[in-house]
């Protein structure tokens, strides 16, 4: 029984990380109908910015717990600058194009940002693990777990909850829902659709950067981290149902638990875990777990 407790904890820890890296992608897809490959780059930008700010912060001998605020700041900084820049400067020119072309635009952006990050930060890895070690460990089932994992869980729950409230309980959220339903009618009803788009994309960018910033303390921030998260985020978002917040949460949880179970019982399956889950879910529910049926238009 003990192993299943450990699997549950490992699974939830991994799931909260997966949710953080994919929630922004599902939000952007839900509203803008663009599958954003550059999401990985925004994640990397968040990680790099977070890591360099953390390193600078600890050099100054300040209150160590302030470093978590620094990570939030890094995510905000990246999202608020890069989000509008990308949406206004690039994406708005391709809203009327084929979805595949929009995908291609974000892929081109990903390639450009990949080298831009290398030019900005160099190829040497960055280490900012102080915030990871600061919180210490707890014992669960006879095993030490870093408290940082639970911080990640808290942030994931908070981010998901805040987003849900924002969309379902605020005036602006209602506008977003209207734009999702029908951008043309919304425009006709006087909704400033471009403003909804730019704010949503910025929000998605902040969430991507948030995922990156809070991952930075547990990894070595090095070239190539962007590409690794793209397909993970894709998979989670598709399993849950594109554009669905609840779906992303459930998708992350399923993938997290399945992967943890594989690691503990059949390590050889780890490589396949996420794709097997994806294939299984899509075969049973072609639209993903939570997506609405699309209307068939004649």
């Amino acid at each position, binding site marked *: 029984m003990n*192993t299943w407790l*450990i*699997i549950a*904890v*490992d*699974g939830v*820890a*991994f799931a909260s*990380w997966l949710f953080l890296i994919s929630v922004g992608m599902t939000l952007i897809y839900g509203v803008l109908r663009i599958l954003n490959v550059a999401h990985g780059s925004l994640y990397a930008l968040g990680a790099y910015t977070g890591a360099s700010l953390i390193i600078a912060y600890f050099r100054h001998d300040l209150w160590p717990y302030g470093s978590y605020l620094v990570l939030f700041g890094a995510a905000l900084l990246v999202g608020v600058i890069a989000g509008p820049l990308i949406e206004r400067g690039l994406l708005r020119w391709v809203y009327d194009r084929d979805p595949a072309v929009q995908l291609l635009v974000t892929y081109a952006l990903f390639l450009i940002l*990949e*080298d831009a990050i*290398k030019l900005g930060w160099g*190829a*040497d*890895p960055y*280490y900012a*693990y102080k915030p*990871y*070690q600061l919180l*210490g*460990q707890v014992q669960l089932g006879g*095993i*030490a*777990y*870093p408290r940082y*994992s639970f911080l990640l869980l808290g942030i994931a729950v908070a981010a998901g909850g805040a987003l849900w409230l924002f969309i379902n309980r605020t005036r602006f959220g209602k506008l977003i829902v209207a734009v999702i339903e029908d951008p043309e009618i919304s425009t006709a009803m006087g909704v400033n659709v471009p403003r909804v788009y730019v704010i949503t994309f910025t929000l998605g960018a902040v969430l991507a950067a948030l995922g990156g910033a809070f*991952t930075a303390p*547990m*990894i*070595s*921030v*090095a*070239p*190539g*981290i962007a*590409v*690794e998260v793209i397909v993970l985020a894709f998979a989670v978002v598709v399993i849950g149902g594109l554009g669905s917040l609840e779906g992303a949460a459930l998708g992350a949880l399923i993938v997290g638990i399945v*992967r*943890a179970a594989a*690691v*503990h019982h059949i*390590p*050889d399956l*780890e*490589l396949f875990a996420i794709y097997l889950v994806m294939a299984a879910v899509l075969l049973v529910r072609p639209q993903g777990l939570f997506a609405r049926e699309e209307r068939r238009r004649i």
Partner: protein
Amino acid sequence: MRKSHIVVRSRGIFAGMLIGAIILSLLAACAPPVTVPEAGMGETPAAAPAAPTAGAPSQVKIGIVTFLSGPGSPFGIPSKNAADVIVEALNAGQAPAPYDQAGIGGVPIQLVYVDESGGPDKQVAEYRRLVLDEKVDLVLGYVSSASCLAVAPVAEELQKLTVFYTCATRRIFEEASYKYVFRTKGTDLVYNVGAARYLLKVKPDLQTIAGMNQNYAWGQDSWTAFRDTVLQLKPDVQVVSEQFPKLFAGEYSAEISALLVARPDAIHSSFWGSDLEAFLIQATPRRLFDQSIGVFIIGEAMLPSLGEDVPPGLIIGAEGTHGALAPDNELNRWFTRIYRERYDARPIHPAYHMALTLFGVKAAYEKAIAENGGKWPTQDQVIAAFEHLEFDSPSGVIQMALANGHQAIEPMAFGITGEFDPAAGEVKLTDRMVFPAECVNPPEGMKGEEWIAQGFPGAKCP
């Protein structure tokens, strides 16, 4: 409507430009290649050759292939840095003896870089371009074993001297024999046999082992070689967990839990690059290395980067006697000094591999010149001189002993992490032990797997 009109017009101009560019590039492909001086290289005037070699070309052009982008670049960039700083010194004739003659036999070296990203098929195409378009005199490089395996037959086809500097798979010379291909470093087999022997020396009462390796050929090869060696030397040892996380996964909490549950005496890991540090950052606070000895067969690269946060008691290897485990000889002191002066960092083991490979090439050429009566040698003469060559390097003496003199054997050094040394900025390695090359390398013509299975015939160990 108005807007689309503008778009059409600008599209036409752009299209014209693009057609022009394509035609130009095709023409350029046919025209004789223009040599672009490499940054940081062209400025140094070559020292006048002491004794001009008869029939010498104006330069020796070396194509260097390593990772300049992507997750391999923490290995590739230090290698490129080492090549830059060493070739600059060699061209200026500033390297210590026996490499004090300028360039190669008085002829300046020119480097051309290629990024190793893009997969083996891309690398085969790039190799052909280096040889046929850039007309390099030799190709030196490759980190990824897949690149090496794909490129080796092409080197034979194009008959171009090619030296692999850090890819490790033993399959290259076990599955085929080559005339034009050399490798100046040992194979994955050697590191793991050495690591297993060292572990049993430090912990003779070893009961259980576990593996934590990346899920690709290097990780799989390393783990089987290590596991089989341990089981051969001490058959009562139990394997309690075999973890293979995805390459560059970055997040290992579940694997660490599984290892904590399994409680092995020792954990073998062939992790490298950013994965290595990420694993350590996540495992150390969870006290994984309090209950198990970590055996990091190429853990040397993380010593400068993680500094005082490397926990004590880890077994660390460096793919041979490189980096923190390098011998204290004059070449090593000189290399670390010029590298530190330029990049403000200590060279890690891939940089040492690049350094020793360049010295090996220089030694082979200069031996060939001497054997050719002072005249510039043909490629075949260089190859003949390279076979069974023994040369000095910052990592000690390297012998091209196996695969008819095409595959090097290296001694293997290991140490245990100890206290932090603020002056060096990294932890000290204690209990440094060097296994001679004859102890960890199989004899000529024997496959690694058989050698382990038969109980290491011919091994001379201290």
